[in-house]
């Protein structure tokens, strides 16, 4: 296998796949530097594979799977480091709005984050891929290595669990 071909393919994949894996990594780790590290590690592993993937799609699914695993590993190590799981790491610099509206928004967002974090990994991953990765069931099943019917069930169970954990009776106002 030609080095040049490998490099060209790598660059193509990076350009196409980085946005989605970065998004997924961020929503799992909730930490920008950690998300960057996770993506970096995943792409380096990808580069070192002795064989190329048959196409861009397969490469994408593989990278998503690795990023998801690395992301959850990061969380596990964080948990062990800080025994009590108290504060959610949020970076307030992203909310530009000020005032009461901002306060209300922050509260709901924190509730969502907390609720998501309480989901076990097998329920959290599919719903993150669906809502943040914009992936359909088939793509999610390929990325996670589970059957489509499993994806369907887990997304539903994830929603069920979140619904119980989120504030009741509050309708989302865009």
């Amino acid at each position, binding site marked *: 296998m030609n080095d040049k071909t490998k490099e060209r393919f790598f660059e193509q994949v*990076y350009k196409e796949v*980085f*946005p989605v894996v*970065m*998004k997924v990594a*961020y*929503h799992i780790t909730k930490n*920008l530097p950690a*998300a*960057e590290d996770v*993506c*970096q590690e995943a*792409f*380096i592993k990808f*580069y070192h594979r002795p064989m190329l993937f048959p196409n861009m799609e397969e490469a994408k699914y593989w990278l998503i799977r690795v990023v998801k695993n690395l992301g959850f590993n990061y969380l596990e190590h964080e948990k062990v480091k800080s025994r009590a799981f108290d504060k959610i790491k949020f*970076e307030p610099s*992203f*909310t530009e709005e000020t005032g009461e509206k901002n306060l209300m*928004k922050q509260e*709901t*967002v924190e*509730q*969502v*984050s907390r609720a*998501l974090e309480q989901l076990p990994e097998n329920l959290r991953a599919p*719903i993150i891929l*669906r*809502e*943040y990765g914009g992936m*359909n*069931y088939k793509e999610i099943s390929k990325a996670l290595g589970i059957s489509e019917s499993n994806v*369907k*069930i887990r*997304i*539903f169970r994830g*929603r*069920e669990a*979140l*619904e119980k954990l*989120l504030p009741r009776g*509050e*309708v*989302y106002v*865009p």
Partner: protein
Amino acid sequence: MCPDLEILSTYYDDEIPETHRKEIEIHVSSCQKCQKILKEFENISGFMEQVPEPDFTASAGNVWDRISDSLEKDDVRQDFWHRKVWFSFPAAAAVAAVFIAVFSISVLSYYIGRNSTSAPVVSQELNLTDAKDYSQSVEQLFEDDTLDFVIPASDSFVHAGEPLLIREVDFKARRY
């Protein structure tokens, strides 16, 4: 008849096969209960969307730079390793001899260990000695129950060589 909640969830995700989608759509359009459930799904998606995201465009560049730095370092290392293997055959033979010696001592100490009753292994390699005897009452507190771990069926295990016992920090340093 209202469809299963799970089916509604699938319908919400637009993943219902076309043959059944129409039926469900018709039902939902006139069913308050189902509409409420779909609204709840919308709630959840909405709340999740509200979680702020940093701008990732800078990250794309940063990560790319770090990847190319890291790959460059690796290439240097690879060349280095190749040199070691292909140009120092006499050294390799000497180390292989040591390996055989270490291996036989290990096997020997294993058999010594097997024959003793409760005490740990006497190993010539390591200069350890038997621990002293314990009183019986103390022994009874700690049974020799074995931890059994069963690994799900997979023939993807391969014997890669001698076992490795190493500090996690040292292992992580080795990899990069």
